[in-house]
Protein backbone atom coordinates (compact mmCIF):
# COMPACT_ATOMS: atom_id res chain seq x y z
CA UNK A 1 0.00 0.00 0.00
CA UNK A 2 1.76 3.14 -1.18
CA UNK A 3 0.82 6.49 0.18
CA UNK A 4 1.65 9.90 -1.09
CA UNK A 5 2.33 12.45 1.62
CA UNK A 6 1.70 16.05 0.76
CA UNK A 7 2.66 18.07 3.83
CA UNK A 8 4.80 20.39 1.72
CA UNK A 9 2.62 20.37 -1.34
CA UNK A 10 4.74 17.77 -3.09
CA UNK A 11 3.59 17.25 -6.63
CA UNK A 12 3.24 13.71 -7.88
CA UNK A 13 1.90 12.34 -11.14
CA UNK A 14 -0.04 9.65 -9.29
CA UNK A 15 -2.27 12.22 -7.63
CA UNK A 16 -5.52 12.44 -9.63
CA UNK A 17 -5.78 15.74 -11.42
CA UNK A 18 -8.93 16.87 -9.66
CA UNK A 19 -7.22 16.44 -6.27
CA UNK A 20 -4.27 18.65 -7.21
CA UNK A 21 -5.82 21.85 -5.83
CA UNK A 22 -4.92 20.35 -2.44
CA UNK A 23 -1.28 21.02 -3.26
CA UNK A 24 -1.89 24.76 -3.25
CA UNK A 25 -4.18 24.50 -0.26
CA UNK A 26 -1.53 22.70 1.80
CA UNK A 27 0.98 25.43 0.93
CA UNK A 28 -1.32 28.27 1.93
CA UNK A 29 0.00 30.21 4.89
CA UNK A 30 -3.09 29.64 7.03
CA UNK A 31 -3.42 25.93 6.28
CA UNK A 32 -2.75 23.70 9.26
CA UNK A 33 -3.48 20.40 7.56
CA UNK A 34 -1.14 17.76 6.16
CA UNK A 35 -2.44 15.31 3.59
CA UNK A 36 -1.84 11.65 3.01
CA UNK A 37 -3.25 10.26 -0.22
CA UNK A 38 -3.94 6.61 -1.00
CA UNK A 39 -5.04 5.20 -4.32
CA UNK A 40 -7.03 2.43 -2.69
CA UNK A 41 -7.43 1.40 0.94
CA UNK A 42 -9.98 -0.39 3.08
CA UNK A 43 -11.27 2.74 4.76
CA UNK A 44 -9.78 6.14 5.53
CA UNK A 45 -11.08 5.93 9.11
CA UNK A 46 -9.36 2.59 9.71
CA UNK A 47 -6.12 3.96 8.27
CA UNK A 48 -6.37 7.12 10.37
CA UNK A 49 -6.99 5.02 13.48
CA UNK A 50 -4.22 2.51 12.93
CA UNK A 51 -1.52 4.96 11.86
CA UNK A 52 0.27 7.26 14.27
CA UNK A 53 -0.50 10.40 12.30
CA UNK A 54 0.18 13.84 13.69
CA UNK A 55 -2.75 16.06 14.53
CA UNK A 56 -4.54 17.74 11.66
CA UNK A 57 -3.66 15.04 9.15
CA UNK A 58 -6.21 14.40 6.43
CA UNK A 59 -6.30 10.92 4.93
CA UNK A 60 -7.74 10.86 1.42
CA UNK A 61 -8.47 7.81 -0.71
CA UNK A 62 -9.31 7.70 -4.39
CA UNK A 63 -11.18 4.47 -3.67
CA UNK A 64 -12.29 2.69 -0.51
CA UNK A 65 -12.49 -1.08 -0.71
CA UNK A 66 -14.38 -1.30 2.57
CA UNK A 67 -16.01 2.09 2.92
CA UNK A 68 -18.78 1.93 5.43
CA UNK A 69 -21.63 3.85 6.84
CA UNK A 70 -22.69 3.76 10.43
CA UNK A 71 -22.17 0.32 11.85
CA UNK A 72 -20.99 -1.02 8.49
CA UNK A 73 -24.02 -0.15 6.42
CA UNK A 74 -22.90 -0.41 2.83
CA UNK A 75 -21.70 2.73 1.15
CA UNK A 76 -21.68 2.63 -2.65
CA UNK A 77 -18.63 4.48 -3.92
CA UNK A 78 -16.98 3.72 -7.24
CA UNK A 79 -13.28 4.73 -7.49
CA UNK A 80 -12.09 8.12 -8.65
CA UNK A 81 -15.32 10.08 -8.43
CA UNK A 82 -16.18 10.68 -4.78
CA UNK A 83 -14.70 12.11 -1.62
CA UNK A 84 -13.51 9.62 0.97
CA UNK A 85 -11.56 11.40 3.66
CA UNK A 86 -10.80 11.33 7.36
CA UNK A 87 -9.57 14.22 9.45
CA UNK A 88 -7.35 13.02 12.29
CA UNK A 89 -7.44 15.37 15.27
CA UNK A 90 -5.85 15.32 18.70
CA UNK A 91 -8.18 17.31 20.95
CA UNK A 92 -6.71 19.31 23.82
CA UNK A 93 -6.34 17.53 27.15
CA UNK A 94 -9.31 19.27 28.70
CA UNK A 95 -11.81 18.41 25.97
CA UNK A 96 -14.38 16.09 27.57
CA UNK A 97 -15.74 13.14 25.64
CA UNK A 98 -19.22 14.62 25.94
CA UNK A 99 -18.08 17.60 23.84
CA UNK A 100 -17.21 15.43 20.83
CA UNK A 101 -20.79 15.32 19.58
CA UNK A 102 -20.61 19.04 18.98
CA UNK A 103 -17.53 18.56 16.77
CA UNK A 104 -19.53 16.00 14.83
CA UNK A 105 -22.30 18.55 14.42
CA UNK A 106 -19.73 21.15 13.37
CA UNK A 107 -18.43 18.73 10.72
CA UNK A 108 -21.88 18.16 9.18
CA UNK A 109 -22.46 21.91 9.23
CA UNK A 110 -19.09 22.52 7.53
CA UNK A 111 -19.81 19.99 4.80
CA UNK A 112 -23.25 21.51 4.18
CA UNK A 113 -21.83 25.03 4.09
CA UNK A 114 -19.03 24.05 1.68
CA UNK A 115 -21.25 22.09 -0.71
CA UNK A 116 -23.78 24.92 -0.77
CA UNK A 117 -21.07 27.43 -1.62
CA UNK A 118 -19.47 25.27 -4.30
CA UNK A 119 -22.65 24.03 -6.00
CA UNK A 120 -25.47 26.42 -5.13
CA UNK A 121 -27.57 23.40 -4.14
CA UNK A 122 -29.78 23.32 -1.05
CA UNK A 123 -27.57 20.93 0.88
CA UNK A 124 -28.65 20.28 4.46
CA UNK A 125 -27.45 18.26 7.47
CA UNK A 126 -29.82 15.47 8.52
CA UNK A 127 -29.71 14.37 12.13
CA UNK A 128 -27.55 12.81 13.29
CA UNK A 129 -24.81 12.17 10.74
CA UNK A 130 -25.98 12.53 7.14
CA UNK A 131 -25.87 15.22 4.49
CA UNK A 132 -28.84 15.51 2.14
CA UNK A 133 -29.98 17.25 -1.01
CA UNK A 134 -33.77 17.28 -1.06
CA UNK A 135 -34.87 13.83 0.04
CA UNK A 136 -31.72 11.98 -1.02
CA UNK A 137 -28.51 11.35 0.80
CA UNK A 138 -25.36 12.74 -0.76
CA UNK A 139 -22.93 12.29 2.10
CA UNK A 140 -22.33 11.14 5.61
CA UNK A 141 -20.09 11.70 8.60
CA UNK A 142 -18.72 8.73 10.51
CA UNK A 143 -16.64 9.87 13.46
CA UNK A 144 -14.64 7.78 15.87
CA UNK A 145 -12.67 8.65 18.96
CA UNK A 146 -10.13 6.90 21.13
CA UNK A 147 -10.53 7.53 24.86
CA UNK A 148 -8.11 6.44 27.55
CA UNK A 149 -8.59 7.22 31.22
CA UNK A 150 -11.38 9.66 30.41
CA UNK A 151 -9.11 11.65 28.08
CA UNK A 152 -9.86 11.97 24.41
CA UNK A 153 -6.61 10.95 22.74
CA UNK A 154 -7.76 11.14 19.17
CA UNK A 155 -10.78 12.10 17.16
CA UNK A 156 -11.23 10.94 13.59
CA UNK A 157 -13.90 12.59 11.50
CA UNK A 158 -14.69 10.48 8.46
CA UNK A 159 -16.45 12.20 5.59
CA UNK A 160 -17.90 10.53 2.52
CA UNK A 161 -19.54 12.55 -0.26
CA UNK A 162 -21.05 11.43 -3.55
CA UNK A 163 -19.50 13.96 -5.88
CA UNK A 164 -19.27 12.77 -9.49
CA UNK A 165 -21.10 9.43 -9.22
CA UNK A 166 -22.97 9.16 -12.53
CA UNK A 167 -25.72 6.87 -11.21
CA UNK A 168 -26.72 4.43 -8.49
CA UNK A 169 -27.83 0.80 -8.47
CA UNK A 170 -31.58 0.18 -8.48
CA UNK A 171 -31.83 -0.31 -4.73
CA UNK A 172 -30.22 3.05 -3.96
CA UNK A 173 -31.65 5.24 -6.72
CA UNK A 174 -34.43 6.68 -4.60
CA UNK A 175 -32.28 7.14 -1.53
CA UNK A 176 -28.95 8.45 -2.81
CA UNK A 177 -27.78 11.24 -5.05
CA UNK A 178 -24.55 12.95 -6.08
CA UNK A 179 -23.61 16.51 -6.84
CA UNK A 180 -23.20 15.75 -10.52
CA UNK A 181 -26.61 14.05 -10.70
CA UNK A 182 -28.17 17.20 -9.25
CA UNK A 183 -26.50 19.77 -11.49
CA UNK A 184 -25.05 17.88 -14.47
CA UNK A 185 -21.64 19.39 -13.72
CA UNK A 186 -18.36 17.69 -12.83
CA UNK A 187 -16.68 18.90 -9.65
CA UNK A 188 -13.06 19.04 -8.53
CA UNK A 189 -12.78 16.94 -5.41
CA UNK A 190 -9.67 18.83 -4.33
CA UNK A 191 -11.49 22.13 -4.44
CA UNK A 192 -14.43 20.70 -2.48
CA UNK A 193 -12.13 19.18 0.16
CA UNK A 194 -10.27 22.47 0.58
CA UNK A 195 -13.60 24.26 0.99
CA UNK A 196 -14.82 21.71 3.55
CA UNK A 197 -11.61 22.05 5.59
CA UNK A 198 -11.82 25.85 5.57
CA UNK A 199 -15.42 25.69 6.79
CA UNK A 200 -14.59 23.05 9.39
CA UNK A 201 -11.79 25.22 10.76
CA UNK A 202 -14.33 28.00 11.24
CA UNK A 203 -17.15 25.84 12.58
CA UNK A 204 -15.12 24.00 15.19
CA UNK A 205 -13.92 27.27 16.67
CA UNK A 206 -17.42 28.73 16.87
CA UNK A 207 -19.33 29.02 20.15
CA UNK A 208 -21.55 25.95 20.70
CA UNK A 209 -24.66 28.09 20.57
CA UNK A 210 -23.70 29.40 17.14
CA UNK A 211 -23.04 25.92 15.71
CA UNK A 212 -26.38 24.66 17.02
CA UNK A 213 -28.24 27.74 15.85
CA UNK A 214 -26.85 27.57 12.30
CA UNK A 215 -27.31 23.79 12.09
CA UNK A 216 -30.90 24.19 13.29
CA UNK A 217 -31.63 26.83 10.68
CA UNK A 218 -30.19 24.68 7.90
CA UNK A 219 -31.47 21.21 8.82
CA UNK A 220 -34.85 20.00 7.61
CA UNK A 221 -34.84 17.50 10.48
CA UNK A 222 -35.94 20.35 12.74
CA UNK A 223 -39.65 20.94 12.32
CA UNK A 224 -40.26 17.63 10.59
CA UNK A 225 -42.53 14.87 11.81
CA UNK A 226 -40.64 11.95 13.28
CA UNK A 227 -41.59 8.56 14.60
CA UNK A 228 -40.09 7.74 17.96
CA UNK A 229 -40.65 4.46 19.76
CA UNK A 230 -44.23 4.06 18.65
CA UNK A 231 -45.30 7.69 18.74
CA UNK A 232 -45.42 10.58 16.30
CA UNK A 233 -43.81 13.87 17.17
CA UNK A 234 -42.06 16.89 15.76
CA UNK A 235 -38.31 17.44 16.07
CA UNK A 236 -38.01 20.79 17.80
CA UNK A 237 -34.37 21.42 18.61
CA UNK A 238 -30.84 20.08 18.85
CA UNK A 239 -29.21 19.85 22.25
CA UNK A 240 -25.55 20.62 22.77
CA UNK A 241 -24.88 16.94 23.42
CA UNK A 242 -26.24 16.13 19.96
CA UNK A 243 -29.59 14.74 21.13
CA UNK A 244 -32.87 15.87 19.58
CA UNK A 245 -35.75 17.40 21.47
CA UNK A 246 -38.99 15.94 20.12
CA UNK A 247 -42.45 17.21 20.96
CA UNK A 248 -44.85 14.28 20.95
CA UNK A 249 -48.39 14.71 19.68
CA UNK A 250 -49.72 14.30 23.20
CA UNK A 251 -47.77 17.35 24.32
CA UNK A 252 -44.97 15.55 26.10
CA UNK A 253 -41.34 16.30 25.25
CA UNK A 254 -38.86 13.52 24.60
CA UNK A 255 -35.11 13.67 24.27
CA UNK A 256 -33.94 11.25 21.62
CA UNK A 257 -30.36 10.13 21.52
CA UNK A 258 -30.09 6.41 21.00
CA UNK A 259 -32.98 5.50 18.75
CA UNK A 260 -33.69 5.72 15.05
CA UNK A 261 -36.09 8.31 13.78
CA UNK A 262 -38.23 8.08 10.66
CA UNK A 263 -40.96 10.24 9.13
CA UNK A 264 -44.47 9.36 10.31
CA UNK A 265 -46.65 11.70 8.23
Amino acid at each position, binding site marked *: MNSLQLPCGIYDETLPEDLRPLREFSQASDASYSFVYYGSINSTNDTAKSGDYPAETVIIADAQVNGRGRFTRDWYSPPGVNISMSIALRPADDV*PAAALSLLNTAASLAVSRALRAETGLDVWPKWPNDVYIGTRKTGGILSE*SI*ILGGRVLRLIIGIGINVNTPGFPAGLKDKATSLTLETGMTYSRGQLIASILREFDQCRRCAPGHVISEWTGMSKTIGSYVYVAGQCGIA*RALNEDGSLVIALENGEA*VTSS*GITIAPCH
Partner: protein
Amino acid sequence: MEINDIKELIELIKETDITELRYEKDGMRISLKRGSSTPPADPPAVKVPVAEALVKDTDENVNYLTVKSPIVGTFYRSSTPGAAPLVELGDTVRKGQALCIVEAMKLMNEIESEVNGVIVKIFHENGTAVEYGEPLFQINPL
Protein backbone atom coordinates in the same frame (compact mmCIF):
# COMPACT_ATOMS: atom_id res chain seq x y z
CA MET B 1 -42.15 -1.47 23.66
CA GLU B 2 -45.46 -0.67 22.02
CA ILE B 3 -47.34 2.63 21.84
CA ASN B 4 -49.74 1.56 24.58
CA ASP B 5 -46.82 0.85 26.90
CA ILE B 6 -45.50 4.36 26.35
CA LYS B 7 -48.92 5.86 26.96
CA GLU B 8 -49.16 3.87 30.14
CA LEU B 9 -45.77 5.16 31.24
CA ILE B 10 -46.85 8.73 30.57
CA GLU B 11 -50.05 8.22 32.54
CA LEU B 12 -48.10 6.77 35.42
CA ILE B 13 -45.77 9.77 35.50
CA LYS B 14 -48.69 12.19 35.52
CA GLU B 15 -49.93 10.70 38.77
CA THR B 16 -46.62 11.30 40.51
CA ASP B 17 -44.14 14.08 41.27
CA ILE B 18 -41.64 12.59 38.85
CA THR B 19 -40.37 15.17 36.35
CA GLU B 20 -38.11 12.92 34.34
CA LEU B 21 -38.05 9.19 33.57
CA ARG B 22 -35.57 7.11 31.61
CA TYR B 23 -36.42 3.63 30.44
CA GLU B 24 -33.89 1.29 28.82
CA LYS B 25 -34.32 -2.16 27.39
CA ASP B 26 -32.60 -4.15 24.64
CA GLY B 27 -30.66 -1.15 23.40
CA MET B 28 -33.75 1.05 23.14
CA ARG B 29 -33.91 4.12 25.34
CA ILE B 30 -36.87 6.31 26.13
CA SER B 31 -36.55 9.51 28.09
CA LEU B 32 -39.67 11.32 29.24
CA LYS B 33 -39.64 14.80 30.72
CA ARG B 34 -42.52 16.82 32.06
CA GLY B 35 -42.88 20.53 31.42
CA SER B 36 -42.12 22.83 28.48
CA SER B 37 -41.06 21.26 25.21
CA THR B 38 -39.22 24.39 24.12
CA PRO B 39 -35.50 24.35 24.92
CA PRO B 40 -33.43 27.51 25.41
CA ALA B 41 -32.92 29.28 22.07
CA ASP B 42 -29.18 29.56 22.49
CA PRO B 43 -27.82 26.93 24.86
CA PRO B 44 -24.94 28.23 26.94
CA ALA B 45 -21.53 26.63 26.66
CA VAL B 46 -21.42 24.05 29.41
CA LYS B 47 -18.18 22.37 30.25
CA VAL B 48 -18.79 18.79 31.24
CA PRO B 49 -16.21 17.46 33.69
CA VAL B 50 -13.86 14.81 32.38
CA ALA B 51 -14.87 11.44 33.78
CA GLU B 52 -12.41 9.77 36.04
CA ALA B 53 -12.60 6.66 33.94
CA LEU B 54 -10.31 4.57 36.07
CA VAL B 55 -10.75 4.58 39.82
CA LYS B 56 -9.70 2.31 42.64
CA ASP B 57 -12.51 0.58 44.43
CA THR B 58 -12.57 1.25 48.11
CA ASP B 59 -14.37 -1.80 49.45
CA GLU B 60 -13.86 -5.53 49.00
CA ASN B 61 -12.22 -5.25 45.59
CA VAL B 62 -9.55 -2.94 46.86
CA ASN B 63 -7.00 -3.87 44.22
CA TYR B 64 -9.30 -3.81 41.24
CA LEU B 65 -9.65 -0.86 38.95
CA THR B 66 -12.95 0.14 37.42
CA VAL B 67 -13.19 1.53 33.90
CA LYS B 68 -16.14 3.90 33.76
CA SER B 69 -18.04 5.31 30.81
CA PRO B 70 -16.89 8.85 29.99
CA ILE B 71 -20.18 9.58 28.22
CA VAL B 72 -23.85 8.66 27.94
CA GLY B 73 -24.26 6.18 25.11
CA THR B 74 -24.71 2.60 23.99
CA PHE B 75 -22.17 -0.01 25.07
CA TYR B 76 -20.86 -2.36 22.38
CA ARG B 77 -18.43 -5.15 23.08
CA SER B 78 -17.22 -5.45 19.50
CA SER B 79 -16.13 -2.82 17.00
CA THR B 80 -18.54 -3.98 14.29
CA PRO B 81 -21.77 -6.02 14.45
CA GLY B 82 -21.14 -9.73 14.31
CA ALA B 83 -17.44 -9.40 15.13
CA ALA B 84 -15.93 -11.10 18.15
CA PRO B 85 -15.93 -9.10 21.40
CA LEU B 86 -12.84 -6.94 21.83
CA VAL B 87 -12.20 -8.54 25.22
CA GLU B 88 -13.58 -11.45 27.20
CA LEU B 89 -13.75 -12.13 30.90
CA GLY B 90 -10.35 -13.40 32.06
CA ASP B 91 -8.46 -11.84 29.16
CA THR B 92 -5.15 -10.19 29.87
CA VAL B 93 -5.15 -6.70 28.39
CA ARG B 94 -2.40 -4.22 27.74
CA LYS B 95 -2.44 -0.52 28.43
CA GLY B 96 -3.97 1.14 25.37
CA GLN B 97 -5.86 -1.95 24.26
CA ALA B 98 -9.41 -1.35 23.05
CA LEU B 99 -11.99 -2.70 25.51
CA CYS B 100 -15.32 -1.61 24.01
CA ILE B 101 -17.16 0.98 21.96
CA VAL B 102 -19.57 3.46 23.50
CA GLU B 103 -21.68 5.01 20.77
CA ALA B 104 -23.15 8.41 21.39
CA MET B 105 -25.11 10.16 18.66
CA LYS B 106 -23.54 7.97 15.99
CA LEU B 107 -20.06 8.82 17.18
CA MET B 108 -18.09 5.66 17.93
CA ASN B 109 -15.93 6.11 21.02
CA GLU B 110 -13.33 3.42 21.55
CA ILE B 111 -12.54 3.01 25.24
CA GLU B 112 -8.99 1.82 25.93
CA SER B 113 -7.47 0.20 29.01
CA GLU B 114 -5.28 2.47 31.08
CA VAL B 115 -3.37 -0.40 32.64
CA ASN B 116 -1.99 -3.86 31.96
CA GLY B 117 -4.25 -6.32 33.74
CA VAL B 118 -6.84 -9.06 33.70
CA ILE B 119 -10.54 -8.43 33.03
CA VAL B 120 -12.36 -9.66 36.14
CA LYS B 121 -15.79 -8.18 35.49
CA ILE B 122 -17.80 -6.96 32.52
CA PHE B 123 -20.76 -4.96 33.75
CA HIS B 124 -23.01 -4.87 30.69
CA GLU B 125 -24.39 -6.93 27.84
CA ASN B 126 -23.72 -5.83 24.28
CA GLY B 127 -26.10 -3.06 23.21
CA THR B 128 -26.88 -1.79 26.71
CA ALA B 129 -27.46 1.92 27.29
CA VAL B 130 -24.92 3.33 29.76
CA GLU B 131 -24.82 6.55 31.69
CA TYR B 132 -21.93 8.92 32.32
CA GLY B 133 -19.65 7.48 34.99
CA GLU B 134 -21.28 4.03 34.94
CA PRO B 135 -18.84 1.11 35.45
CA LEU B 136 -17.98 -0.82 32.30
CA PHE B 137 -15.12 -3.16 33.32
CA GLN B 138 -13.23 -4.19 36.39
CA ILE B 139 -9.54 -4.92 35.86
CA ASN B 140 -7.06 -6.61 38.16
CA PRO B 141 -3.81 -4.73 37.41
CA LEU B 142 -0.67 -6.78 36.81
